């Protein structure tokens, strides 16, 4: 029998078999495909909260009645002043209060009048994310008050306030809107990456360890179909299922954007059909390698359960490799593009930032994944007969 014809027959059968496993597919679709947009929505709701908090221009104080000058300044900045609850420290600790509290001493105004530096305390909890995020805003506001008072004093003494500035410091953000959004949406490539793993995992195990466990591998090997054709056909089906789930996961972000609650995030996050197609293109070599590696591990196992335990190594490796970028303070390194999963994560992040990905950037990952795929398929072909008879 023609080798390709046999491989096609196996491919078609395995694909039908995998797609009929509705229960598993539904779980994978829910966990891998729906999870990404869900996280995006949660993220946007978080950003929305931060934005609303910033827009609210509220400041929480204790003892502001002792500081009419400061009150005047805050009101001129159009801030709404709220009195802090008596147990504000406990509330900050318990995450029940989401704003830092400005504590003014009773002697504030007299000390200010005498040219002494009154002590203003800004109370927050570093374990309270909401309160900590408001610290910058409050500190800038108080810094502004201080700057204003200093300027007035210097003018009163006939000194030019510009003397205080030996240089003009201005910040200049070079990140474009897509790159800024990538800071927030940087975890999305990770979800797509895991969709490839979970998409192909069940099919990889079922076509190898599952086949051994139910006793259908021996009859299959008693047919005249070449071992290589059987392996290629099975791998092709696993690869397609993995890529299908990955494609659905990528595509789900396109309509997922409609659900974004934060207007600024929605404006910054641009994930269209082009980005989705680039993601699928980048993920295809990884899906091929993962399918082959998981099959190679599973063919050694007698049962599906044993194979599940063994393939956790792959799942762990794929989930941990991208995390390396978090620990690496030096940013992107050239070798990242040679490590499967890390390479795809790096390139997908670039796509998200709107940085063009050249063929030269993608080639190392494609090359390594292709080599892994070929080696793993050769190993499975060798193992197939040996394991069937065990």
């Amino acid at each position: 029998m023609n080798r390709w014809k046999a491989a096609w027959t196996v491919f078609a059968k395995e694909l039908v078999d995998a797609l009929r496993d509705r229960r598993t597919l539904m779980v994978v679709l829910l966990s891998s495909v729906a999870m990404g947009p869900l996280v995006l929505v949660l993220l946007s709701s978080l950003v929305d909260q931060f934005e609303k908090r910033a827009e609210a221009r509220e400041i929480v104080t204790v003892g502001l009645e002792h500081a009419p000058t400061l009150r005047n300044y805050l009101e001129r900045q159009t801030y709404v002043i709220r009195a802090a609850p008596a147990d504000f420290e406990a509330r900050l600790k318990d995450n029940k209060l989401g704003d830092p509290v400005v504590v003014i001493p009773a002697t504030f105004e007299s000390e200010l009048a005498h040219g002494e530096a009154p002590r203003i305390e800004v109370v927050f909890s570093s374990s309270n994310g909401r309160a900590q995020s408001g610290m910058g805003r409050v500190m800038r506001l108080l810094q502004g008050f201080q700057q204003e008072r200093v300027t007035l004093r210097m003018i009163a003494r006939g000194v030019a306030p510009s003397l205080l500035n030996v240089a003009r410091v201005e910040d200049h953000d070079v990140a474009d809107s897509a790159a800024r959004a990538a800071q927030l949406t940087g975890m999305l490539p990770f979800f797509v990456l895991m969709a490839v793993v979970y998409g192909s995992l069940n099919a990889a195990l079922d076509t190898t360890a599952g086949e051994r466990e139910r006793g259908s591998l021996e009859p299959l090997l008693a047919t005249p179909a070449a071992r290589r054709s059987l392996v290629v056909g099975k791998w092709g089906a696993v690869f397609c299922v993995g890529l299908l789930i990955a494609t659905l996961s990528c595509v789900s972000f396109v309509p997922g954007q409609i659900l974004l609650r934060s207007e600024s995030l929605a404006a910054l996050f641009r994930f269209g059909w082009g980005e989705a197609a680039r993601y699928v293109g980048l993920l295809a070599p990884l899906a091929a390698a993962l399918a082959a590696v998981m099959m190679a591990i599973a063919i050694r196992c007698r049962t599906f359960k044993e194979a599940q335990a063994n393939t956790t190594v792959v799942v762990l490796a794929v989930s941990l490799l991208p995390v390396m970028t978090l620990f690496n303070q030096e940013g992107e390194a050239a070798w990242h593009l040679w490590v499967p999963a890390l390479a795809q994560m790096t390139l997908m992040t670039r796509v998200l930032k709107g940085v063009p990905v050249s063929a030269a950037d993608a080639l190392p990952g494609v090359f390594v994944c292709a080599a892994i795929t070929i080696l793993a398929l050769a190993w499975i072909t060798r193992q197939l007969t040996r394991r069937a008879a065990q």
Partner: protein
Amino acid sequence: MIRMEALHKTFMSGRGRSARAVTAVDGLSVRAGDGAITGLLGPNGAGKTTSLRMLVGLVAPDSGRIEVDGLSIAEDPQGVRARLGVLSDARGLYPRLTARENVVYHGRLHGLTREAAEARCDTLARQLGMEALLDRRTEGFSQGERMKTALARALVHDPPNIVLDEPTNGLDVVATRALRDALRMLRDEAGKCIVFSTHIMQEVERLCDRVVVVSHGRHVAEGTVASLCEQAGCEDFEEAFVRLAFGTEGAKP
């Protein structure tokens, strides 16, 4: 026609210091002709399954020669497999496929066109009395239904030689009878060469034209049921088998 000559197979059991060589097949020779059912009778662990796996090419013999219709398994494994229909002890089916899809899949792997495989599946379903099962998914099939589907799968390419490893294991009386009838039909009407491994005396007595008694991987006796009883010097076939397979140690006092 199936010929197995002077087959030897040794496996390594255990690892490291506890590793030891276990001889599964030790010089076994079997010859099975066309139009006959040849029984491979032996106790558990006698080397029957290993011999049949060597015949199919799933296990390579350490030495010896295997030929099917003049083709050597060592030189032309695919040619040999194309001429064999194998019902091994592993009778697993694909639970999410229907019985028909299971059978047609194997037919396609044997090089049949989809139409030819479908037509052959219908013919076998009629012969094996499994028309009602054909379009049901095999998940939840009874042992008998599974056996019928597995047998149809093994016969889909109409092989001239049929190999069955302990085919009645786990079958009830009705399913066993149905299997026996199917095998007789294949022998009498189609002139197939059938090799049948078992450790059940009644199966051999009722079905086999020739019997090869195997013990400890070796060929210990061969002939018809009557001639084996004669060789052992007793009328009861079970007693004759015990004497032939285990010598006088296993025989009744």
